[in-house]
């Protein structure tokens, strides 16, 4: 087994009285593609969002490259901004709602992290941004405002923006859930292409058919714990747990 890039130990997350994640241990190794499925409210997005500290942990530890994130002093763990920024540079995220910056052009959106976070010279950032946009098939839209693009195009820009930072892990939080059905394919094709490049990715999704082909590992999350973990064949075709079977039945027929 390869050494994990990212490890999570004993993760709990509470929103007030609501105990969303109830003790999760988890690790990601280079090249793994992990699909996280589960009903709405199962905590799958929250779980993903803990990994780049979009959510603060209520309990638990996150380790990156064998180093624990956070600073412990007198039994209290604090998360200095500098550490979190460093984690987020290495763990990129693509959101359901794209979250492009509307006051910047497509090209500026993709350059932004390179210039502002990595402190790169504009010409160099521009070159990288153009390459990333070319990869997602949007070379012709570099000067457009995000508001003028379709949802599928916006999401591809968001992917290019995340890729520009050269993250070691990419998190996808339901990347196709807010898209019109006819636009889902173009985004999934881009994600598939990233899979072929051997990138390490985590995907929260309702597209079970896609998850089956995409993932090296599938996690079924229910009631804030990993209910079932295995290969796509194990979890999606021959689930052992009754809860997983019921979840898949409710999804009905989907094409593998």
């Amino acid at each position, binding site marked *: 087994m390869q050494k994990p890039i990212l490890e999570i130990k004993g993760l709990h997350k509470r929103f007030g009285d609501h105990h969303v994640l109830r003790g999760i241990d988890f690790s990601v190794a280079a090249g793994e593609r992990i699909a996280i499925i589960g009903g709405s409210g199962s905590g799958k997005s929250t779980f993903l969002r803990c990994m780049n500290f979009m959510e603060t942990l209520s309990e638990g530890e996150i380790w990156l490259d064998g180093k624990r994130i956070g600073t412990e002093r007198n039994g209290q763990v604090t998360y200095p901004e500098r550490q979190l*920024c460093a984690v*987020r540079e290495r763990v990129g995220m693509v*959101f359901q709602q794209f*979250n492009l910056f509307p*006051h910047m052009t497509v090209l500026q959106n993709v350059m932004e992290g390179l210039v*502002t*976070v990595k402190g790169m010279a504009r010409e160099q950032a521009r070159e990288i941004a153009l390459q990333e946009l070319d990869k997602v098939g949007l070379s012709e839209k570099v000067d457009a405002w995000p508001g003028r693009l379709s949802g599928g195009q916006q999401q591809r820009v968001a992917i290019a923006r995340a890729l520009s*930072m050269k993250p070691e892990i990419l998190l996808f939080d339901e990347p196709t859930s807010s898209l019109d059905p006819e636009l889902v394919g173009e985004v999934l094709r881009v994600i598939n292409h990233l899979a072929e490049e051997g990138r390490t990715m985590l995907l929260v999704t309702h597209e079970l058919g896609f998850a089956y082909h995409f993932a090296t590992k599938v996690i079924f999350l229910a009631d804030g714990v990993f209910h079932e973990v295995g290969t796509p064949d194990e979890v999606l075709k021959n689930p052992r747990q009754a809860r997983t079977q019921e979840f898949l039945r409710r999804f009905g027929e989907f094409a593998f």
Partner: protein
Amino acid sequence: MDYSWDFGPVIARFDMLAIGFLNTIKIAIVSILLGVVVGLVLVLMRLSPRKWLSWPAAIFIEFYRNTPPIVHFFWFFYALPVLLSVSLDPYVAAVLALSTQSGAFYAEVFRGGIVSIERGQWEGARALGMTHAALMRRIIVPQAISRMVPPFIERSFELLKTTALASTLAYADLLYQAMMVNAETFRPLEVYTTIALMYLVLLVTASQLARLAEARLTAYQ
């Protein structure tokens, strides 16, 4: 009604009104600029997670929102000197009243703009690894500014009109100068009609300029 209009005596003293007109513009511009500074300080305090910063700012803002503007003028002119045991020039007292008033309202305008930016924008920037300072500077504030422009302009117009209260402190603004001209000419109808028109010209011109500025600042939308 057989009143015979006669603008002659007013026109003869138009230089007095012109001085008042310029003083009104001067006090408005100075108070807007200082008000922006006060507003920025207040909004930074107000949005701070530290209670000892946010509470005083909130109280300050509420105080100004719930008291009549003329009371602020009187307070700075008649009350503050008692505390400091120095008398304040009417101009200084008026600028203090106007800039703290507008600062309190600007702070709310700024805050409204910043909190109106969707959570996704903060998250999108944070997920790239931006520090809080960088995301404010690069992502939040530029977008918030374009949303602040219309209420900011509206607030500044209020301030421009409120400058007339400076006349109660005997500051030589347009209204005060009009009172002087009236005292010399006994022509209230002509005098106050003239300055009403002068205020109108000032505000209409300012609103045209504001519209230009607004168009530039909100171009991407």
